[in-house]
């Protein structure tokens, strides 16, 4: 009788353990498996996004947005892109400059004449509006010459050798 009771108790205990496993442990394992699957999916999705970001950003910006932070390789890549962009910008400016037509003999003569006036103006230390307007008129058809002249005035002004009477006295 006692053995039978013990067997029944053991069976009951085993049934409880099985029930507990079925109710608690099995669902937990299933949940873990689902979480693992979701994490794998998320990881694949992030990798795809990063590839897309790099592809999109490479051609127009030195900065690449990454979800996982930056490491030394990223910084090197960004630095290389900045250098490449700087070179591209310098190349654009150089191309624009190269596309400028060679000055005509008339333009060269006007530039020479104007140069004397600019030198005199700098020697005087004073830029008057009428002088600069006259110079600009003489070089009306020579935008490159006017740009170069503006740079000369800028150098004289920034070094304090030339003081413009007023703002319009700065622009040939």
């Amino acid at each position: 009788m006692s053995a039978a009771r013990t067997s029944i108790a053991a069976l009951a205990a085993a049934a409880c353990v099985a029930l507990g496993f079925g109710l608690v442990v099995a669902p937990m394992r299933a949940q873990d498996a689902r979480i693992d699957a979701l994490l794998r999916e998320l990881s694949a999705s992030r990798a795809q996004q990063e590839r897309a970001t790099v592809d999109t950003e490479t051609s127009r910006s030195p900065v690449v947005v990454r979800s996982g932070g930056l490491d030394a390789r990223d910084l090197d890549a960004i630095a290389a892109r900045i250098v490449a962009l700087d070179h591209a910008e310098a190349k654009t400016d150089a191309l624009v400059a190269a596309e400028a037509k060679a000055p005509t003999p008339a333009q060269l003569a006007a530039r020479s004449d104007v140069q004397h006036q600019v030198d005199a103006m700098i020697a005087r230390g004073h830029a008057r509006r009428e002088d600069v307007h006259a110079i600009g008129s003489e070089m009306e058809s020579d935008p490159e010459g006017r740009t170069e002249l503006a740079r000369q005035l800028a150098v004289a002004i920034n070094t304090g050798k030339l003081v413009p009477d007023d703002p319009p006295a700065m622009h040939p």
Partner: protein
Amino acid sequence: MNQLRTTTTKTVLSLLTALAAFAVAQTSDAGASYPSSAYCNWNTDGSGACSGTLAAFRASSDPNAYAAFFSNSAYSSVEGQLNGRFFYCVASPSQVPVVQTLASATPTAFFTVWFNTTGSCTNLQVYSLSQFL
């Protein structure tokens, strides 16, 4: 007597209504806010840099201070005056859009310009900040 009391009550009520309307009309600004100041630095070789907003140059203690963004058919430039000294540089073709942006920007748009010894702007940037509104 009653008429006097009615008039007084009406006056008091009108004043209270006006006071309430005034209190409601008051707005409170939140967020960071500070004035921008104009700044320029010239090196002995004529290179240098300037920064600030148009409003800051206007509000400078130097009565002749100004900053300007200029464009004509030949070139674009940035210029100004601060503390008795002028600065002036010609923008490169790739900087022209920035000059145009600055020319049409609000007076509180913050700009920085660097210029070299050849009268060229070496770098030009514009920065819109809520703090300067």
